[in-house]
């Protein structure tokens, strides 16, 4: 099968959905001639025109506000927000408008609005271009959150997100976008439903729930522990934070008796904390050891190689934690 990278997957998903549904359009900064910050959407504006691939002024609140207005009046906007960090500029649109209008208005509207944004550390981009804010966002009812770890998942999930009639934030980890490994991706169309985890490696001793760029690190750790110590990790990628496929995780913990949640987030108020709480609440009897969270420290993301590499949760920390609970 052919192999494509993460960037190509994003470009293909957008292209296919734009072709499929004439009410779909892209709105955001640098989506036209530049083709996205990493060139991921190429020359889509040539194919669909500047009406449907709409470059905007630097006006994040107006981009999302306009997307909301378009979504409730019959269109299906895709708002490209560049960096997750920039969502703060339009936080009211996310927290108070797109996620609340349906409820406040008695369910009588649809909000088919997808946002995508680069997230994650590892590009030495410092505190305002590197954050992972899924934990903050999952606290808002009404929002769906997608956080894929490879090109295959990214394409199938983005297509589903665009077709969803709810607001969805689709995060693209910038290490995956920049230089993520290629995946086998079929030529023919496929969709991946939101809310279905994927077991990236089956195992019997410890369940590791990992997201985005941490999935590869977890798989590397699994390989090492298998070779060096004969320890068998089961690596689960939830793929979507909301809805969260807790059944897959609980079933795994039932088998392994151990859970480590391995995510690239500040630990306090994180998705990892929520996974730990769910398993403590609903899977306590399965556990043979305390649940562990391996995340980033509660500091801004630092600049430079030395500090940032210390900040990002490492394979070594994951292995050390696993050794502690076994």
């Amino acid at each position, binding site marked *: 099968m052919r192999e494509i990278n993460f960037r190509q997957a994003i470009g293909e998903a957008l292209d296919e959905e734009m072709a499929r549904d004439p009410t779909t359009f892209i709105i955001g900064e640098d989506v036209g001639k530049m083709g996205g910050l990493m060139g991921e959407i190429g020359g889509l504006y040539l194919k669909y025109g500047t009406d449907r691939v709409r470059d905007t002024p630097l006006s994040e609140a107006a981009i999302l506000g306009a997307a909301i207005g378009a979504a409730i009046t019959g269109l299906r906007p895709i708002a490209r927000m560049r960096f997750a960090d920039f969502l703060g500029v339009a936080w009211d649109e996310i927290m108070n408008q797109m996620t609340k209008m349906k409820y406040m208005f008695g369910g*009588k509207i649809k909000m088919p609005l997808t946002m995508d944004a680069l997230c994650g550390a590892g590009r030495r981009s410092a505190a305002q271009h590197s954050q992972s804010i899924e934990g903050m966002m999952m606290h808002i009812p009404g929002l769906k959150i997608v956080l894929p770890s490879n090109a295959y998942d990214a394409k199938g999930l983005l297509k589903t997100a665009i077709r969803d009639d709810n607001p969805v934030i689709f995060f693209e980890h910038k290490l995956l976008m920049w230089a993520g490994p290629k995946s086998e991706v079929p030529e023919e169309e496929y969709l991946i439903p939101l809310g279905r985890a994927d077991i990236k490696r089956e195992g019997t001793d410890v369940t590791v729930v990992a997201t985005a760029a941490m999935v590869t690190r977890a798989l590397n750790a699994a390989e090492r522990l298998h070779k060096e110590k004969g320890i068998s990790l089961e690596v689960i990628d939830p793929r979507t934070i909301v809805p969260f496929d807790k059944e897959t995780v609980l079933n795994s913990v039932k088998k392994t008796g151990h859970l480590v949640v391995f995510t690239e987030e500040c630990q306090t108020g994180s998705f990892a904390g929520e996974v730990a709480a769910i398993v403590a609440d609903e899977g306590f009897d399965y556990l043979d050891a305390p649940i562990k969270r391996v995340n980033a420290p509660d500091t801004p993301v630092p600049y430079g190689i030395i500090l940032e590499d210390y900040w990002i949760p490492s394979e070594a920390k994951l292995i050390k934690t696993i050794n502690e609970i076994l």
Partner: protein
Amino acid sequence: MAIQKEKLLWMFRTMVRIRRFEERVVREFADGNIPGSVHVYIGEEAVATGAIAHLKKEDYIMSTHRGHGHLIAKGGETDKMMAELFAKKTGYCLGKGGSMHIANLDIGMLGAAGIVGSGIPIATGAGLSAKMRGTDQVTLSFFGDGASNIGRFHEAINLASVWSLPVVYICENNLWAVSVPTSTSLNIPNIADRAAGYGIPGVVVDGMDVLAVYEAAGEAVARARKGQGPTLIEAKTYRFRGHFEGDSGTYRPQEEIDRWKKRDPIDLYREKLLEMKVLTRKQAEEIDKEALAEMDKAIKFALESPFPEPEETLENVYT
């Protein structure tokens, strides 16, 4: 501008209906039948009425926390509105939105926004949608003087200008952002002057004179419909009561309140219509009586309607 008699009378009836609705809201709130907080539109009726008079059913409006008048003018049914305020299941939003969040997309009412200024970019989006879908729908974006100081005012109007969107931005300048007067929050005489910064027309209009609002809005709506882009209208008006029910409004000078109340938009318009011989005193009284009866009916409907079941809390989060 020659205005048909029917339209002139519709405007009078609409203003009276808004006033009578709001007066009942004031009373029902005081009696404890309406929970939460309400912001009434008494004194500002001419703005919504004169502007919305130009709209078709499929046109859009985006409203504010002080939105009852906009919805009534756009064709909202007062019984469903009152039921919503009473937090009843038969309300426009199943009792989930209340006074600050009434919407009814079936008549082009895209919602009311409790966060001041948040509706302005959403209106821009509705305008974008109409343009992209190739319809001639126009969107009216209502907001107050306070909202004109919020960053999104700038972002949203600039965007509508560069894309030449069919949106009319209507600032209801009632001189007070809760307790902060425009004299300390603006360093220019007119909010409409800001239109120059976006390269669009800015128009100041007497917001107590419904015919003046009608005329200014008419030009702006026609421009929008012809694809000539947005307009910023500033209607100078005044809220006769506090910011919310329960706000004594003591921060405003009594002399100022008295001066504005002498220019009650309904009184001014009634006299004008009498003078124009479009209306007789008897007809005016009849219209008022009908409005009172309508509001009695709305209250009865709201009182007799059931509350939602507690478990309905969990519904309508996702599609």
